[in-house]
């Protein structure tokens, strides 16, 4: 007898698919460059907002969204590898992947904010560091992309592996939020008040806005165009 339980809350699912879409768009615009590099920068700020939201949601979201719920300790990983893990959210190996992906994305976004392309693009926080530091962070941004690509391949390969070999569909729960589990393992997941969602979104929005636009108020000299001389 199996029963459907709520495993991923709606904000978490929206976060996941928006992030997937944003990362794909960032890759495409970053690879093409030219006029699209400005969109690459804007999408980067969106990803920053999404990551801040996810960080907060990891503390105030519903049970399976919380870091304390899925943080992969060696004991948990060991139990999972022996087939003794009994949870419903991210399994301990999946949790490693989640943390690695979020960490690499945070590094890419963080470095990208200070980056420049030596053409006509500078990240929104470029003026806060020296050119040589910006160059270093630009290199880190470029290198980090390879790590992200490798993790994404692993992410998708794992989903295919679970679907084909373990006959376990991981995509549907990320769409519907529901997962079928044996009745005796069912747990009640309480809903999260909307005020927490509003608060998390507000903080994420303020951080993203502050980084993309607010920083100009920290460096007023840069914002004012220099006077044009007649010579």
């Amino acid at each position, binding site marked *: 007898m199996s029963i459907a339980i709520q495993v991923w809350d709606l904000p978490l699912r929206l976060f996941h698919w928006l992030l997937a879409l944003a990362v794909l768009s960032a890759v495409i615009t970053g690879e093409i*460059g*030219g*006029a*699209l590099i400005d969109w690459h920068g804007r999408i980067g700020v969106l990803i920053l907002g999404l990551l801040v939201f996810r960080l907060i949601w990891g503390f105030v979201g519903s049970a399976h969204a919380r870091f304390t719920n899925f943080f992969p300790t060696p004991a948990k990983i060991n139990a999972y590898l022996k087939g003794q893990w009994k949870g419903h959210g991210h399994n301990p190996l999946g949790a490693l992947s989640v943390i690695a992906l979020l960490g690499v994305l945070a590094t890419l976004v963080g470095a990208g904010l200070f980056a420049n*392309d030596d*053409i006509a693009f500078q990240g929104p926080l470029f003026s806060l560091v020296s050119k040589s530091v910006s160059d270093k962070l630009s290199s880190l941004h*470029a290198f980090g992309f390879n790590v992200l690509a490798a993790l994404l391949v692993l992410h998708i390969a794992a989903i295919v592996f679970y679907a084909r070999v373990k006959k376990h569909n991981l995509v549907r729960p990320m769409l519907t939020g529901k997962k079928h589990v044996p009745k005796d393992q069912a747990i009640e997941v309480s809903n999260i008040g909307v005020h927490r969602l509003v608060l998390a979104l507000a903080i994420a929005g303020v951080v993203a806005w502050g980084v993309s636009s607010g920083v100009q108020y920290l460096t007023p000299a840069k914002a004012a165009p220099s006077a*044009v001389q007649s010579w």
Partner: protein
Amino acid sequence: MKFKLALALVIASANTAAIAGQAEDQQVKFRQSAYSFAAWNCSKIKNQVVEHPETFNKDQVIAAANSIAAVANSGLGALYGPGTDQATGWKKSRLKPEFFDKHDEVVKVATAFNKEANELQKVAATGDIGAIKTQFGKLGETCKSCHDSFRVKDADAK
């Protein structure tokens, strides 16, 4: 005796290398300067056409586009002599060594840059902000294609 001869040869070759290195360093310095100057002019166009079109000043944008075209048409290829991938101008060159093995591809990206820079000069003269913006994007793509192919990604790799 043999040792002294060997020592003399080592010193002589080191000297030659130092002198040859100076010419290469100079080429790198000139080309870094040329691209920096082009980048300054690109930033002016970006500012007045893309970021703050309300500040668009036709004469300034034309002057900037003319400057970029002048850099592109100045014969920059002469500054890519053999060994300049190892030389230091204002800072160490980030030119990839394989630049010297891929002649056809180099000509392709270099010609593309020249073509789009000349086109930008023409479009700037019309004063059509939308058209300048589009052409400026095309120019940026040619910068990027050369960076992707022939510039070491790691700013500190050398």
